[in-house]
């Protein structure tokens, strides 16, 4: 016991990073200097502690039994054979945790475990938590769990999901959220435009692909009634709050400690291992570890939204943008995650950094039975830029203008107004970036 508590203490302290810097000792200025990253030494030497580096002597290993069909009602789950596997300590199914609540970043629409009679909505939904003395036993038992389902129509396309006769993936319908943008008089402006260009763009599912998969360790401190969780999250206190409400605990009873994080890119905003770890630690009274495989991470955790973007853009004879109409339809998959924020953020950036007085836009985040989509670097605006920056080039070519010159003509300056009607009062040096990149690349009308 002494040995264990000593080691636990180590893990509480390990996430302290000491800055070790050479080369700027004589300087009195530290901002604007190439100070070596404070965590570089630990990462290069292997001293950095990632979740999978944390181990306890009596630790148990978890594997999660996941959905067998992307859209189906769970009729029966049989764990009898799985329980007989040597080394299995506990197999937790929904009926064992009747009080546990759903979780989710913006909308709490994700079940912790699917109960018989309820639906699995994508291949990542969890059906059972298998806890065993070894990883191998947990895996073997997981694969012996038998599941009976009633299959439903699998909705793979947000346009199908929006049709009247499409089955509802969630009770309130398949459109999670709709946003609008309206400024000026788009219809008149299109009529008066010299050129109007309309195109439909489509982006894809992307995995954020951080080097480190989702992983964590948890320990239940029964004396204090606190569950300690070592697992990465991009927003510590938000994850703590979601885990606590799901387990009906106070926030003080859920302690999350960040180990070293091996990349995230948006993928570690969502709860992944945390709730399952906490449940297993509290039920078994022993330390538990859960590490996703790459396959599990890709199937279970969030993706970059595929977004269909329809852009209609007008310009006058002199090359000034006159009107912009846009539609953003984002496939947010089985659960909302960050979807209700991603898709319309993309739309709010639909025109790029260009002045356009007349604007109309609509965005929908839509449920399907695909792996859910959430946050990824760019948050809807990367998809938007793929569309608006091609619009800009296409229009420049039609106007017979240098694409750089066309951009300079329309670029935001101080006091320009964004699609949201926000006046840009400070730090607007977009024009300078175009001029500098033209210099840097020796830009000559687009050709080298």
């Amino acid at each position, binding site marked *: 016991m002494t040995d264990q508590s000593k080691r636990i203490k180590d893990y509480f302290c390990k996430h302290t990073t000491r800055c070790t810097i050479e080369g700027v000792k004589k300087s009195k200025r530290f901002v604007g200097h190439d100070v070596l990253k404070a965590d570089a030494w630990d990462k290069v030497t292997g001293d950095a502690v990632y979740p999978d580096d944390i181990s306890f002597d009596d630790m148990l290993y978890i594997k999660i039994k996941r959905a067998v069909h992307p859209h189906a009602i769970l009729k029966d789950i049989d764990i009898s054979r799985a329980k007989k596997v040597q080394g299995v300590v506990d197999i937790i199914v929904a009926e064992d945790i009747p009080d546990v609540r759903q979780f989710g970043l913006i909308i709490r629409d994700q079940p912790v475990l699917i109960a018989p009679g309820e639906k699995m909505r994508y291949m990542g939904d969890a059906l059972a938590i298998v806890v065993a003395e070894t990883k191998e036993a947990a895996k073997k038992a997981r694969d012996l769990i038998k599941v009976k389902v009633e299959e439903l129509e699998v909705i793979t396309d947000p346009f199908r999901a929006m049709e009247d006769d499409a089955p509802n993936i969630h009770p309130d319908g398949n459109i999670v959220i709709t946003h609008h943008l309206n400024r000026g008089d788009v219809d008149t402006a299109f009529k008066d435009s010299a050129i109007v260009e309309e195109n439909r763009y489509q982006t894809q599912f992307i995995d954020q*692909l951080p080097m480190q998969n989702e992983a964590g360790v948890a320990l239940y401190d029964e004396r204090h009634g606190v569950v300690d969780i070592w697992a990465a999250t991009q927003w510590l206190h938000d994850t703590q709050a979601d885990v606590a409400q799901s387990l009906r605990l106070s926030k003080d009873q859920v302690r999350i400690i960040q180990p070293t994080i091996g990349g995230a890119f948006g993928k570690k905003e969502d709860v992944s291992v945390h709730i399952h770890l906490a449940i297993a630690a509290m039920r078994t009274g022993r330390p538990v570890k859960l590490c996703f495989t790459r396959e599990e991470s890709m199937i279970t955790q969030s993706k970059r939204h595929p977004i269909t973007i329809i852009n209609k853009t007008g310009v006058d004879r002199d090359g000034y943008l006159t009107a912009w109409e846009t539609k953003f339809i984002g496939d947010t998959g089985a659960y909302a995650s960050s979807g209700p924020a991603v898709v319309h953020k993309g739309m709010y950036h639909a025109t790029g950094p260009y002045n356009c007085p007349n604007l109309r836009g609509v965005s929908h985040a839509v449920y399907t039975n695909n792996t859910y989509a959430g946050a990824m670097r760019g948050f809807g605006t*990367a998809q938007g830029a793929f569309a608006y920056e091609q619009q800009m080039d296409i229009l420049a070519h039609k106007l017979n203008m240098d694409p750089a010159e066309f951009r300079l003509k329309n670029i935001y300056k101080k006091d320009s107004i964004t699609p949201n009607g926000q006046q840009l009062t400070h730090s607007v040096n977009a024009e300078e970036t175009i001029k500098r990149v033209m210099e840097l690349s020796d830009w000559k009308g687009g050709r080298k």
Partner: protein
Amino acid sequence: MKKFGRGMATIMFGFGYGEGFPDHSIASIEIKEDERIVIRTAAADVGQGVITTVIQIAAEILRINPNYFEVVQGDTHKTKNSGSTSATRQTYFTGNAVKKAAEDMLANLYHYGSLEFRSNHPEIAIEDGKIYMYDDPDDYITYWEMAERVKERGEKLEAEGSFFPVTYSPDENGQADKVYVAYTFLSQVIDIEIDTDTGIIDLLDVYSAIDLGKAINPKNVEGQIEGGTVQGLGMGMMEDQVIRNGKTLNAGMTDYLVPTSVDVPKFKHYLVEEEDSEGPFGAKGVGEPTLIAAAPALANAVYDAIGVRFFDLPISPSKIKKALKEKEENS
């Protein structure tokens, strides 16, 4: 045959959560008797370098070498909310919170210093971890001694700072006075070569100019530009999680293509540093903006090279080959 192409893209990114969401960071700084300055923040360092950024900011304000700093990272029971590492917000939000905490600490060093030296604040000098009177630099007390003396008074040499700027929620037409705290802008030119036989794109050169207010750490900004661009090029030309009938067909690193070091082009960049934002030392966030221009600049370069527009991502070799074949048949 190899065909050269060049494409440009300019992008903007409104950072922070914005839209009226209560977006804020809290951080604290403590000077310890044992020659340590401890910063506590829940800001997740996912590799981007926020630990280093906040150390540099605090070192600058407190006029002492970064070597003395230690950062206690994310622990719900030791740190307060610093918001998420997302929305390109940590340098701006937690950077400002740490700057405010450091300023509070500096002011208190003057306060306690003036008590020690029985003097007015302007007569006191603070630098390199020492507090002294301008007219007698040899008679100094160190920050660590000061921490000891403050402790003897039953107090702590500790400061907390928060940053909590206001934004507004857009109305039903998406309109509001201030939706995002500020915007980062970036322009990029990408040069490529396409092999018309294989459809493979060779990435040659990437030129970037970013309006970031101020680079707290130019090397780390360079890292963000290169990493973000390569990730954006992955989106542009290879990455694709194929989900058919709800099932992922390429769940693994064997079948899911992602750029590797052999794909990485040469980079040149220019930092537009007007120091004109409300971030720490005028800094704006760079994390997400560095990714966004890559895919459209690539698409524009592909058009420049072979005269074909691609409206679907990724622009894979098979799509390029197919398009070139169709183009040939139609001409």
